[in-house]
């Protein structure tokens, strides 16, 4: 058997790491997936190669995150390896080793925001963002679309790319009013430098295969055709599955496979998904076959019956309305941006961020400089209920000279009063005060 697209698989189940003994993010999580892939003979398919992950360095982490007090004390090796696995996937694709790559690594990352005090939604660092920013520094600028198909809103990825017009973030997820983390509203559209490039598609509980494919065909694909990304990343969470214990959606392995065939991502990264026996073995097999361009029609869960998981008319109508609203915002994004931000010189955004796993409440104020030459330097001032306080300045990759200068001034100024971080993405330099 020969793959139509060569595919690199970074399968790293980390059989010796867990958040805790009975936590869903435990050693057993990819055990049955590995069994299924072994029994299917995936490794004997010509054109599918297995790669070991590398290990991300602290520099790779600091390029994306402001870790408090620092990356070293928050992260374990497992996090550096999960991120290293995604970096390996980027290397495989961008160096031309394989056409596509899929990182089946754990723990996941899409709830990790730019500021990190601890674990949120089983994530500490955003493994996609660490991989992508590493790739941009190594292989040059690229326009990227991240399509997050995890059932939970990818609030971490949203935050990191909030003001980056070169990274289109599309998340479809179970409506935040019914599920963690609660965000992901249709009107969260991005910062002044990238308004409209953050696309949230909140779906009603019990959305099935039909609903996901409706959204894909009528919203995601048209937006992607419009945006014309150089590469597409699928944040491939698998908890929309009808057997997932933490969510209320009705997506199937066939649905996931068909989605990946149509979306045709260059890179996929496993995110959430905790139905480790009933879903993951089949969903992952389906995604792998779809990415490799092979027939996945035989990949069916043992308990799958279409009739049981067909979505109701009410859900169908709801999904259709959401699609229309999202499309409208996409098409009118420039007009809406003017209305939202007008001629303002800076935009301020206040937020609360809750770290469910670590039990920390964070308050932040973000300040985005509106710049006609570049996406603009931005600052986050943050403190939490444990008494921590910090400031972080981000100079974007394509910062103009003035924004860059200003970034260093802001850093000096902030460092005089509190612990401060500087990310100069234009020169790949990262600094911490004190």
């Amino acid at each position, binding site marked *: 058997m020969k793959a139509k697209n060569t595919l690199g698989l970074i399968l790293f189940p980390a059989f010796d790491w867990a958040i805790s003994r009975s936590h869903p993010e435990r050693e057993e999580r990819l055990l049955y997936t590995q069994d299924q892939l072994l029994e299917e003979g995936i490794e004997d398919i010509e054109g599918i190669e297995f790669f*070991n992950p590398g290990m991300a360095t602290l520099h790779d982490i600091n390029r994306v995150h402001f870790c408090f007090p620092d990356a070293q004390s928050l992260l374990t090796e497992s996090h550096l390896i999960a991120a290293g696995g995604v970096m390996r996937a980027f290397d495989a694709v961008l160096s031309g080793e394989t056409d596509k790559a899929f990182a089946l690594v754990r723990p996941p990352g899409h709830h990790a925001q730019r500021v990190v005090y601890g674990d949120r939604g089983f994530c500490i660092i955003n493994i996609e963002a660490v991989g992508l920013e590493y790739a941009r520094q190594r292989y040059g600028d690229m326009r990227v679309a991240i399509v997050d198909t995890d059932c939970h809103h990818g609030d971490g990825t949203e935050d990191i790319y909030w003001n980056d017009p070169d990274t289109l973030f599309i998340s479809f997820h179970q409506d935040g009013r019914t599920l963690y983390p609660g965000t992901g509203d249709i009107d969260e559209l991005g910062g002044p430098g990238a308004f409209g490039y953050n696309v949230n598609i909140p779906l009603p509980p019990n959305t099935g295969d039909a609903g996901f494919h409706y959204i894909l065909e009528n919203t995601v694909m048209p937006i992607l055709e419009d945006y014309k990304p150089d590469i597409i990343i699928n944040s491939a969470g698998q908890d929309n599955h009808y057997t997932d214990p933490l969510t209320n959606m009705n997506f199937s392995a066939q649905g996931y496979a068909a989605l990946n065939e149509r979306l045709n991502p260059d890179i996929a990264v496993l995110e959430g998904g905790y139905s480790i026996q009933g879903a993951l073995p089949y969903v992952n097999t389906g995604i792998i076959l779809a990415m490799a361009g092979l027939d996945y029609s035989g990949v069916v869960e043992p308990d799958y019956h279409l009739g049981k998981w067909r979505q109701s008319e009410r859900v169908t109508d709801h999904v259709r309305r959401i699609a229309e609203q999202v499309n409208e915002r996409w098409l009118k994004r420039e007009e809406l941006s003017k209305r939202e931000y007008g001629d303002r010189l800076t935009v301020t955004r206040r937020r609360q961020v809750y770290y469910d796993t670590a039990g920390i409440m964070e308050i932040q104020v973000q300040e985005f400089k509106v710049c006609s030459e570049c996406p603009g330097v931005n600052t986050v001032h943050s403190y939490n209920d444990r008494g921590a306080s910090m400031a972080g300045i981000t100079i974007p990759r394509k910062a103009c000279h003035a924004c860059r200068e200003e970034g260093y001034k802001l850093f000096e100024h902030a460092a005089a009063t509190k612990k401060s971080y500087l990310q100069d993405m234009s020169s790949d330099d990262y600094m911490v005060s004190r």
Partner: protein
Amino acid sequence: MIIGIDMGGTHIDGAAIENGVLIASVKHQVDHGNYFASIWQCLEDLLSQVDKDAVERIHLSTTISTNAIIEGRLADVALILQTGPGLQWHFERMGEHIVYLSGSVDHRGILVRNLDMTQLDDAREQLLENPVDALAVISKFSTRNPEFERRIKKYFEGDYNEITMGHTLSGKLNFPRRVRTAYLNAAVSRTFIGFAESMREALRQSSIDAPVFVLKADGGTVDLEGAMSKPVETILSGPAASFMGVRALVDDERSDRVLIDVGGTTTDLFFLVDGVPVFEPLGIEIDGRKTLVRALFSQSIGIGGDSHVRFEEGALKIGPRRYGLPIAFGGDSMTPTDALVYLGKLEGAYRDKCLQAVERMAAEHGFEGVALAEMIVRRMCEEIRQAIERVLDKLNASPVYTIEELLRDRTIRPQAVEIIGGPAASLSGYLEETLCLPVYCPLHHEIANAIGAALAKPTLEINLIADTEREKMSIPERGIYMPIDRTFNWREAEQFALSQVRDAGKALGLEEDQLDAEIVESSSFNMVKGYGGRVDRNIRVKAQIKPGLLEKLRKSD
């Protein structure tokens, strides 16, 4: 006394070893019309030189099954497959008699869809239209739950002389390989059993009472009885015999080493890590078919003593083709062997002709004879060096699944090389320079294969899985599928695995001090249903009789 016999493509070698000392050896030509006669003549020749009554065991490394597969002399096999849900492989080169049945179990061996008995009736009707001798039954995940394979076998008992069940051949997961392995097993069964019966009969007539063991591709042996039920395990044992022979001939060190076996057409590379051989992760490939037959890892490269040497657009090329013998041995194609003869490193039957040919080729391309000959030999060494590097890159990138293994970063760095085969001794100096490593060419290396066959000990690997939620434990290699208690724990699993390996080893005639039973891999996973539910365990233990030697070869006094 142990007798070892290794049948290769052209030669058949025999060695008799008593108390670790080589007391006799023979070399014969293989008669491709009659493999049994070849082996028997070799054995008789050897026995005529020693005390027949002192023979304790006879070890055979044969190409009976290998040649049946490579030469396409395979019996027609009826195949019954339960492919279940998942990837649909197209099984080719397995004949026409394939029937697909519904029914499947999942990755934990839990019943998903039952076997439909009426389908079995239809299958029998269909299969019996073309009556054949052997049947192979393979179900997806049958190693996790062999129920369907067993029921199907029972149903067809009486219709076939030989029925192979997939789960009996390996405890490893890989459905397409399990299908191919079971098919090949059934397809060579009759040929191998015919050979084994002739062997038994001949031994009986000669009043030789010693048990017969057969070499496997993993460098171990299996008794004749075992080989008759799993003849596929006897394929490609020749290279493993040579490998084990070298282990017997050199001082064992716990270091990383490469073994180079230089043949006429190809050169085979083997590797040791900390003195332990590297195995194929799943199984060996034969005739383009990937199997689950456990085997030493080896890499064959298309360059050997008889490879064709020529210039192509000004560049020197060696192999991969071979056109008969070297000029120095009566052929007419320039070869690395001729270069070695020219340099005075090897003897040649047609030395003058060889010298002239090298001179002529050198003159044509503006070289001195010596320069050309040296160039050829160094090029060959360079190709071997590059091949070793490529293989090391691949082996060093082998997938790992735990943080501990990833951080340990066990990169293989050879510290020494052993070389055997026809031109081995003459090449070792050049190789030492190219590889910058010590290269040893052991004494008796020309019959390392027969010595290895004689001294290899029985091996066995088992894969235990215990699932305390389902209250079941399985060891497919031992046919064990038994109930366990919910409290069954990791330590008990390891102990049970070791005791099973020991029992199997003793049944194969190993003494207590030869058993060397060890745990190769072991892990226990907490299984939790939902949040905060009861914690069960999924325990996995791989254990083996460490492949090795019955004894080391000592120097005769």
